């Protein structure tokens, strides 16, 4: 009982605050009831697990913390001054419950990372589109395109091997180094998605751009069957998309899941003409079984992804004169009526994956995790052939990879916890010689072994620190043919002469390339509370990566891009040092988040036009890889303003700036400024919500000059014409509208219009921008049934 005499004689203005966290993994417990028994002091923890009790009279109290699914926590505390602490509660008594699962859905991979968790709703909104389109909705993420149906994510200005995609516990192994190689993932197959910007994803790999992490569904073990059937139709391209998700769970924790997806699109249309041969077909399926209990979980599964896509016919020009004529023409040089048929040039990618995962909690609440994935990716690129059947591809590469990860996490008690792990990878690349085209990438064997150590220190609710260290050893072995004239032109006759095995009758050297790379990476993250509603995050990352096989070994004509690509054996590791500062206000009417970063990338590897080569199939533009020291800086800003009840103004803005250190020159393909805003009317009559969306993309004013001349006959004279492949297109605005109608608890209908004004525009980040406009207005109708 409170001492009423004490009430009058002392100041009752003390504060007790802190975090309620899960004893297993330190995750915040949302809406935990924190109370002093037999008093009026009680409060619920917020969505970060934070609680604050004010106006306390000094004295001794019985603290009780209760939370659905947790064992009630009791402690005697003495309040004499303001203080705060973390309380760890045991969230797993005899069942995994809804609240735990909800927490898991919102879980961040680390408290000091700058990351975004995608909601189920947003993922489903993009199931008739691509992964890059989905992650491209957040600030700082842009999309690199090769035409309309090949899209890859760019995070804070960097892409390719600098953005790691992790799915089912392992890196997606699918030739991600090629600009025209989109990730082999169907959005329909994505259950949970997180994007970590920058260096705090060291557990998964060494990627300075960030990690895109795709994880399986979390669920409650009870007898249920749930899932959904989703259908979409886009009028532009007449795209049909449908997908099925089925999850069967049993009370004992046994589960089985099935995902099927199907998409088919014909030629897209820009405001004035069809984009001939821009259609595609995509099929995907995945199946998993497993069992989950308090002690741990095992999971086995198989997935397949297959995508056939057409390459814009008008883009297939290599000869400088042809490129000049294509740029000179306002419209694409080939425009045919609409068709669903995909003809040459086209790409076909099939990705198979077998995965297995086992994790177990020990009695002391630490956890061990084993993850194995086998992936087989076959990529075929078809083109018109001379003298042999068009059905024989000009590129036919099969990449097989085995990945094994073992991770151990210590228990999370008090303020300190740690994680460590080992990764072993074997990879085999086979480039089929039956194509009749010199291999763009040689046969190679690659192995990687890596280890990491992460530690997390959470002394109070005001401050958190995470530190990580990672070491990777990478070894690649390739037997590769080089034309002697290329060998000498690239200057390999000095350093690499002893790698020659023999000379062939057709003027080539057969060489043995054995290269190894060591990468040491480190990250430091700090999260501190600046005020009641504002917190700050500081990240420092030192990430070192090996060159990819493409950067080392590319050698020859890349048919579908109609360019010659050259790698360089002399390319070494790329080392990036990135500092990010982020401030976040996540309460109140005006929420915002600003993230600024500066990166110093030594030996930054880039590919850009480097001249014209006359080879035996004609003259083509050459793109070469080279290394240079680069500086990147930029900032991303997100905001959400609650204007009135159910009316929100949301938006984001990003700006990136980059240069080569030695000569202050701009770098190719840096995203221009990007500003998106959306006026959202939510929950109208509890069934409808709609938004008006606006997006502005600026004109990139900083770009390198890679122009060249083409000699053209004009009025009986040969003249040199400038082929301007460097100047970025103008800025543009796009307006969209989106309506969502919840017919009932299970069925909802969405109606979207993109590019309502049917604006003609070209996108600097689209490699095919020289040849055609971007698509015009698109109407999208989706019907979703969830059960």
């Amino acid at each position, binding site marked *: 009982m409170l001492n009423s005499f004490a009430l009058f004689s002392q100041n009752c203005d003390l504060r007790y605050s802190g975090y309620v966290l899960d004893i297993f993994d330190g995750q915040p417990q949302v809406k935990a009831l924190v109370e002093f028994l037999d008093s009026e002091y009680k409060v619920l923890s917020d969505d970060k697990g934070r609680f604050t009790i004010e106006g306390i009279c000094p004295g001794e109290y019985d603290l009780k913390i209760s939370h659905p699914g947790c064992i009630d926590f009791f402690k005697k505390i003495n309040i004499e001054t303001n203080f705060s602490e973390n309380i760890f509660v045991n969230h797993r008594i005899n069942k995994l419950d809804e609240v735990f699962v909800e927490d898991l859905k919102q879980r961040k991979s680390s408290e000091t990372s700058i990351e975004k968790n995608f909601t189920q709703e947003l993922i489903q909104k993009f199931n008739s589109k691509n992964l890059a389109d989905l992650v491209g909705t957040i600030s700082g993420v842009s999309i690199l395109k090769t035409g309309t149906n090949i899209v890859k994510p760019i995070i804070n200005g960097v892409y390719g091997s600098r953005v790691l995609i992790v799915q089912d516990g392992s890196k997606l192994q699918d030739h991600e180094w090629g600009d025209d190689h989109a990730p082999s993932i169907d959005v329909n197959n994505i259950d949970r998605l997180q994007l970590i910007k920058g260096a705090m994803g060291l557990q998964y790999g060494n990627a300075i751009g960030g990690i895109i992490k795709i994880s399986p569904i979390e669920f409650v073990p009870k007898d249920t069957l749930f899932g959904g059937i989703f259908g979409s139709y886009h009028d532009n391209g007449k795209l049909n998309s449908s997908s099925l998700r089925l999850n069967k769970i049993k009370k004992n924790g046994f589960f089985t899941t099935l995902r099927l997806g199907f998409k088919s699109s014909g030629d897209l249309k820009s405001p004035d003409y069809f984009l001939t041969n821009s259609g595609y077909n995509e099929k995907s399926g995945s199946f998993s079984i497993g069992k989950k209990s308090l002690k741990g979980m095992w999971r086995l599964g198989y997935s397949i992804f297959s995508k056939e896509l057409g390459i814009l016919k008008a883009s297939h020009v290599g000869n400088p004169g042809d490129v000049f004529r294509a740029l000179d023409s306002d419209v694409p040089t080939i425009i045919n009526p609409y068709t669903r048929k995909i003809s040459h040039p086209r790409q076909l990618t099939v990705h198979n994956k077998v995965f297995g995962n086992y994790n177990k909690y020990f009695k002391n609440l630490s956890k061990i995790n084993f993850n194995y994935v086998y992936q087989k990716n076959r990529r075929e690129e078809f083109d*018109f052939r*001379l003298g042999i059947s068009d059905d024989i591809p000009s590129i036919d590469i099969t990449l097989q990879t085995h990945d094994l990860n073992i991770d151990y996490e210590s228990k999370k008690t008090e303020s300190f916890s740690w994680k460590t792990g080992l990764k072993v990878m074997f990879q085999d690349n086979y480039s089929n010689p039956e194509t*009749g085209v010199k*291999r763009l990438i040689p046969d190679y064997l690659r192995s990687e072994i890596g280890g990491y150590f992460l530690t997390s220190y959470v002394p109070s609710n005001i401050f958190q620190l995470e530190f990580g260290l990672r070491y990777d050893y990478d070894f690649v072995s390739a037997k590769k043919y080089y034309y002697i004239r290329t060998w000498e032109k690239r200057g390999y006759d000095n350093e690499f002469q002893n790698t020659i095995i023999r000379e062939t009758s057709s003027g080539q050297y057969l060489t043995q390339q054995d290269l190894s790379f060591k990468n040491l990476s480190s990250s430091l993250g700090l999260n501190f509370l600046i005020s009641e509603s504002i917190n700050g995050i500081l990240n420092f990352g030192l990430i070192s990566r090996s060159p990819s096989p493409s950067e080392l070994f590319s050698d020859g004509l890349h048919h579908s891009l109609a360019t010659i690509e050259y790698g360089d054996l002399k390319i070494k590791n790329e080392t990036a040092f990135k500092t990010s500062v982020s401030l976040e206000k996540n309460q109140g009417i005006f929420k915002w988040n600003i993230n600024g970063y500066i990166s110093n990338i030594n030996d930054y590897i880039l590919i850009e036009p480097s001249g014209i080569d006359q080879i035996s199939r004609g003259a083509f533009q050459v793109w070469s890889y080279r290394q240079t020291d680069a500086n990147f800086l930029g900032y991303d800003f997100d905001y959400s303003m609650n204007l009135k009840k159910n009316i929100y103004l949301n938006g984001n803005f990003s700006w990136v700036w980059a240069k080569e250190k030695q000569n202050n020159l701009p770098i190719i393909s840096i995203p221009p400024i990007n500003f998106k805003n959306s006026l959202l009317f939510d929950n109208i009559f509890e069934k409808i919500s709609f938004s008006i969306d606006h997006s502005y993309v600026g004109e990139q004013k900083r770009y390198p000059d890679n122009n060249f001349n083409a000699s053209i*006959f004009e009025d*009986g004279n*040969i003249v040199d014409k400038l082929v301007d492949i460097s100047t970025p297109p103008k800025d543009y605005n796009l307006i969209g509208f989106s309506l969502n109608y919840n017919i009932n608890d299970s069925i909802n209908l969405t109606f979207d219009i993109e590019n309502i004004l049917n604006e003609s525009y070209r996108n600097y980040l689209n490699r095919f921008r020289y040849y055609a406009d971007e698509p015009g207005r698109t109407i999208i109708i989706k019907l979703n049934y969830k059960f």
Partner: protein
Amino acid sequence: MKNFKHILSIFIITSLILVSCSKDDTPAEVNEVETFTRVVLKVGSDTYTYNVGSPAPEIKLTLGTDYKTSAEFYDASDPNDVENMTLEVIEEADEHYIFYEVSGVGLNITSASDDVIGAESKGINLNTDWSTTDNGVGTLRLSLIHQPTNVSGTDRAAIGGETDIEVDWPIVVEVAE
């Protein structure tokens, strides 16, 4: 979960074996099939041969003369096995077209009566009749075009298609002695 651990070890051992046994063989050298390394122009009784990587020889013509001309394409990357690619071009005549452009001299080039017929029942200019109309020094460009959009086009831009091979020959038309 002992069973699972056993399965996992089998996976790992199998994959190790698969990978270590697979790539001890040397990859086969690719027999490149679509290469043009040589273009031959037979102009009247003269033969002019262009090899990729070397400058094209100068074509010498006399003013006021007619020449029966034919073009041939070869893959001479292996000097012991020279392949005549002209046959492939003829087989796919619908998808090919040869276009000549001239500067600095007066030269008329038209499809000959024995030319190979391609798209729109037009000759593809493999066999042509040349007649010199003005003397001078200049350049003759031969373009082998794949999938021309319009074979009736009068300039390179109008014809469209992709340039598979483009050779610039120095040309001189001299006054007859």
